[in-house]
């Protein structure tokens, strides 16, 4: 199980976490290569459907990250996102999805090290959880090959 390399996708806002990940790069902080970033203008833009679709496309874990409260470049996008996450997380938990595979975080443009820390710890957590077999079966049972 330990040599399992999880697929993790991160949905981040461009102003804080993307910039924070850039800072981790310029600071040459090393972290696990499993997480791949998709850039959004704001966490407010991140539709919950993207999270679901990430799992449908074989992700073992999903990170969503943006600006700390009160630091949103667009003033309030992260607050709206937070409300959405709270409801969404409760719902999918109720549906029997493994919410440990969802990581929500605030990482500012100055927190390069924090980004690396989150990537490393979440990757390790997912590695311990193993591949998301339950969801994969769901996908397999689906007759349609294309997921979009």
């Amino acid at each position: 199980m330990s040599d399992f390399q999880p697929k993790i996708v991160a949905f981040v806002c461009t102003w804080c976490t993307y910039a924070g990940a850039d800072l981790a790069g310029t600071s040459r902080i090393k972290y696990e290569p499993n997480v791949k970033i998709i850039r959004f203008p704001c966490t407010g833009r991140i539709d919950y459907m993207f999270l679901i679709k990430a799992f449908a496309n074989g992700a073992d874990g999903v990170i969503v990250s943006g600006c700390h409260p009160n630091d949103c470049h667009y003033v309030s996008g992260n607050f709206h996102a937070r409300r959405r996450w709270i409801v969404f997380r409760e719902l999918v938990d109720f549906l029997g999805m493994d919410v440990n595979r969802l990581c929500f975080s605030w990482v500012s443009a100055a927190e390069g090290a924090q980004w690396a820390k989150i990537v490393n710890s979440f990757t390790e957590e997912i590695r311990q959880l193993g591949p998301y077999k339950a969801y994969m079966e769901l996908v397999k049972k689906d007759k349609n090959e294309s997921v979009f």
Partner: protein
Amino acid sequence: MEKPRIGVYVCWCGTNIAKMVDVEAVAEEIKNVPNVVVSRNYKYMCSDPGQDMIINDIKEFKLNRIVVSACSPRIHEITFRKTLKKAELNPYLFQMANIREHDSWVHTDRAEATKKAKALVTAAINRINYHEPLKELSVDINPATLIIGGGISGITAALEIADADKKVYMIEKSNKLGGYTADIDLTYPHLSSVQQMLGPMIERMKKNKNIDLFLETEIKEITGYIGNFETIITPKNDNETKLSFGNIVVSIGLRSWDPSPLENYGYGKFPDVITSVEFEKMLLSGNIAKKDGSIPKNIAIIHCVGSRNKNYHEYCSRTCCTVALKYANQLRSAFPNASIYELFADMRTMSKGCEELYTITSRKKVVFMMFDQENDLPGIRKANINDNCEMIIELNEKRSRKFVEVPADMVILMVAMEGREMVKEVAQITGVSLDGNKLFIEKHPKLDPVATTTSGVYTVGSCQGPKSIPDSVSQARAAVARILGTIARGTAQVAGTTAHININICCGCQMCISVCPYSAISFDAEKNVSVINEILCQGCGTCVALCRPNAIDIWGCSNRQMTAELTALLLSD
């Protein structure tokens, strides 16, 4: 839409990327991705030969989409968009994959890093299939400027703009110009007269033909966007006037806080406990005396009253420490033998010449004592007859850890500065956001400190955070430089990455209107749909994620683009 013909360029960035990522293998492998016509790798894509390579390929292979796989788009997206423009290709038909900051610099396994780079590039290619040419909107700029608030920063801005022969409308709520500054006797650190400085400025304001002054006037609503704002004002004793202007300067300043809630200081209870503002007026009148007319023998100045305190204002009011030192100096000149006590939480004398003022003051037999602002504020009680003073301040002195009594005949409270009563309305009218402390939020706290997230609206002076006169004046001049630049250009560009509504699908629930932080969405009652003003829209996309029927999408980050990127990223992994 024409069939995508994609050119992909994988950058070595010298050894920065090439050392950890097999760039040649990446460029080779992605040749197989559908719609890729050209795939190259090169030492430095951002260099002139690198950019020329793209331009030549666009012409030679009729490329209509470009993907550059290099560093962070936050660094070079603009560079390559310009390259596309040069090649007469719409700059938004471009996407970057970040294989440096997010890959080669943070990973140690070359095979893994190369694999990740391939996934990132493939995702970018897949996404760019759905890119569309976007138009950057251009709006004409009305050369007039509206200034809200006639304090020192508003006056400075007005005079600067008027001197450049441009129209200024100055709106002031009170009946006189000068704001908070007009009530100050001397400035710190050089103790020079404010009135001598401000008087001539106000005179110039009144005489200048380019400045329309509206005293005792308030603004109810502003409509429009950068370059084209409008408002209707009703000046006192005058008719309704319609004003049109291209830029707005908000300089409403701050007001002093009423320290009554801090009961331990007994403000309102003891007649000789006064605020710094009241003391400043005393100085201005030239008569420092107790309420009964006698001269105080023991004077205590208490710092941080309502500042740096979670229950009142968490921020530092910034000027009060140095003002308190100024008071100590002025008091010493007035009463050479008086006992002067300064009770402070932290002595913060930033700015040029202010630390020196502290040193000078400390040599004038002023007693400095420290208190714990967080847990243990000093308290004031009435003195007994044999105490030989009016009041006793009970102080847990922080440095000596001693509980002491300070005799006082007069106590000056250095009160906090806070947002004015109408700050919320002004913020709403101008479309600027306030932070939790009712201070205006700047566009970027470091790199764009006078602009706001609303184009064409600038906030200057202490309404953005407590400031000294020089800082307020610098901000005013900085904003003016920006405004005059915009006026000189005549037009303003608005980014093409905005949200747009499909009015056939919109069902008029108006949720998007309540989430938009820029008031960029309005409701068209006739058609029963929401309408986005593309000039006001900043492209955050919060409305997009909220719109249930998917009536709203966003240029440059559409649902189609993002799902394409996501699918490719995971499937190519």
